[in-house]
């Protein structure tokens, strides 16, 4: 393998320039000579670069060694992962108690929860440090999450006059892979609709792969599913290649939402830090920046919630993390607004979502836009039968008129109501919270319209006229040319040209020479194509019927 590669390299380096040079000298073609010159110049540059690298080989080795040291330090940082996470969780609980002390919650719950949480934390820190089982670590982590929700819902039950999700008593069944058991009837119903969580995430795919959390390497490949009841959404994240679920909650009740936001931020930051550290062993080059970023986000989120930075520094002083923290703290970023981005349709498969055409989406987006701006009424109908299969295509034009695919009469109403009705249709009669944010749907729809990373190239490719090529036009910017020529000698010379592109060569002029209805270029192309085809046929014929026998 190595020998053949060496041979190939020698061949490319030695023989091809000789051949090109020979061709250039013998046939004296200017283009080939130019290619030779460029090739030789490239070889020269490569030689100079190699010589420079050889001269500075000590520095390069030193840099490599530094990089390795950094990576290994980060690797060692994984050992304090559990401690680190629990420090942060404790921090979250401190914030929780702070709110309790301010009288947001019933103080009667405080003592009870404090004892429970502290004993739980103490028991779990021990286990978390000992176990290397990621699944178990995540389990412990989620237990804590559930404890928080429990506390929040109990509090809400006391303080909120409206009916809420009372007495959620959940636990994670260790054998049954995070199956939630919930007492409340309405919650049980909505979960019964979703079925077993295992089944939900494995077979009846109700997930959409998205890129919602920016700047995190791991979450680029997650699937999410989504369920809701009258009070909060529970969102399960399945990270690819990882046997566990990450949960998140969004409370519709505003009084509780503000507090939940903090926990959400906290948990997201801790989660992503945790995952980054886990995955840093596989992707070392991503790790250091990500960890510092996540730590920054965590710190910012907590400082903005009124926790003193000195307290944070004390809490976060573990091993090398303080150093990493300080290093990365110079450039803080705005925390990505992830709260309003997670929406999926519980009873729709991915294929159903994909079957929604762009016209539908555009019409829908336009209608929602108009309604949001003008506060108008829109008519939108999406018709599903009982088996959650889309019956017909629906288009909604700018005036809100519905076209096609309707077996039911259009539903008139306010925007939220309309969206609500759509969701009711989609969810097969599931009760929808009237406070549901319609912009989330809009975002989700618009996401489908977005092109990927190479947007310009794809657009350019789509705009090409494949029937008949457009004559190319070459532009010149005389202003820039003049500047380039004079600025080094005398920058004060007045530039007589305007800073704009001038047509240098317009090959469209060739279209004016026509014979028999076809332009000159068309004849030229036809001739060349015939030549290509004729040469190919000759070549293939020469292969099939050789005119001399090769002796062995």
């Amino acid at each position, binding site marked *: 393998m190595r020998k053949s590669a060496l041979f190939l390299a020698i061949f490319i380096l030695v023989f091809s320039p000789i051949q090109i040079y020979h061709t250039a000298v013998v046939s004296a073609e200017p283009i080939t000579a130019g290619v030779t010159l460029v090739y030789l110049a490239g070889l020269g540059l490569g030689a100079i670069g190699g010589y420079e690298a050889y001269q500075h080989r000590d520095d390069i080795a030193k840099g490599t060694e530094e990089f390795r040291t950094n990576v290994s330090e980060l690797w060692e940082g994984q050992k304090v992962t559990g401690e680190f996470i629990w420090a942060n969780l404790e921090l979250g609980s401190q914030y929780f108690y702070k709110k309790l002390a301010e009288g947001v919650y019933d103080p009667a719950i405080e003592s009870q929860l404090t004892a429970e949480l502290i004993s739980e934390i103490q028991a779990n820190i021990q286990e978390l440090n000992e176990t290397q089982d990621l699944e178990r670590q995540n389990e412990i982590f989620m237990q804590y999450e559930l404890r928080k929700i429990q506390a929040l819902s109990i509090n809400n039950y006391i303080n909120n006059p409206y009916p809420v999700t009372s007495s959620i008593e959940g636990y994670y069944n260790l054998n049954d892979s995070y199956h939630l058991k919930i007492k409340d009837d309405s919650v049980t119903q909505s979960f019964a609709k979703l079925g077993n969580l295992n089944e939900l995430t494995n077979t009846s795919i109700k997930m959409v792969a998205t890129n919602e959390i920016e700047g995190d390497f791991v979450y680029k490949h997650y699937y999410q599913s989504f369920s809701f009841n009258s009070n909060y959404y529970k969102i399960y994240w399945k990270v690819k290649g990882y046997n566990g679920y990450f949960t998140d909650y969004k409370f519709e009740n505003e009084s509780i939402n503000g507090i939940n936001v903090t926990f959400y931020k906290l948990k997201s930051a801790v989660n992503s830090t945790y995952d980054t550290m886990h995955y840093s062993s596989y992707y070392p080059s991503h790790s250091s920046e990500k960890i510092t970023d996540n730590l920054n986000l965590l710190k910012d989120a907590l400082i903005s919630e009124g926790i003193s930075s000195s307290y944070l520094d004390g809490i976060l002083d573990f091993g090398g993390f303080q150093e990493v923290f300080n290093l990365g703290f110079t450039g803080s970023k705005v925390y990505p607004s992830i709260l309003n981005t997670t929406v999926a349709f519980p009873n729709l498969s991915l294929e159903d979502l994909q079957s929604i055409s762009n016209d539908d989406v555009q019409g829908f987006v336009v209608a929602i836009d108009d309604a949001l701006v003008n506060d108008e009424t829109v008519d939108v109908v999406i018709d599903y039968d009982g088996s959650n299969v889309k019956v017909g295509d629906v288009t909604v034009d700018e005036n809100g008129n519905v076209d096609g695919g309707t077996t039911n009469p259009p539903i008139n109403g306010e925007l939220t109501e309309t969206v609500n009705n759509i969701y009711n249709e989609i969810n097969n009669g599931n009760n929808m919270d009237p406070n549901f944010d319609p912009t989330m749907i809009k975002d989700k729809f618009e996401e489908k319209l977005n092109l990927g990373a*190479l947007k310009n190239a794809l657009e*350019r490719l789509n705009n*090409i006229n494949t029937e008949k090529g457009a004559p*190319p036009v070459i532009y010149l910017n005389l202003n820039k040319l003049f500047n380039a020529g004079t600025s080094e000698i005398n920058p004060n010379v007045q530039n007589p040209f305007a800073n704009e592109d001038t047509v240098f060569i317009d090959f469209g002029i060739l279209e004016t020479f026509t014979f028999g209805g076809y332009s000159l270029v068309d004849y030229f*192309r036809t001739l060349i194509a015939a030549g290509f*085809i004729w040469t190919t046929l000759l070549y293939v014929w020469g292969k099939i019927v050789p005119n001399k026998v090769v002796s062995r």
Partner: protein
Amino acid sequence: MVVINKIMEFIIGLLDTLLPTLNLPDDFITALDSGITVIIGLLEGANYFLPLDVLVICFTVMLIADNFTLIMRIGQWVIELVRG
């Protein structure tokens, strides 16, 4: 330009899928984007003078004629693989 268009579509589609997962800097992707756009423009310009589609097809035919035995062997191997 149909064949070239399809080939470019395939390559760019592949890049478009793979690049965002590599966590490359945005500047690099933007530069790559504009670079590919320029290359597409050059191809379009060249296609005005030369029938690039025919050229690509002819080269493919020549390649197949040159390596006919190899391609047949690969085909046989695949058939045997499928047949079990």
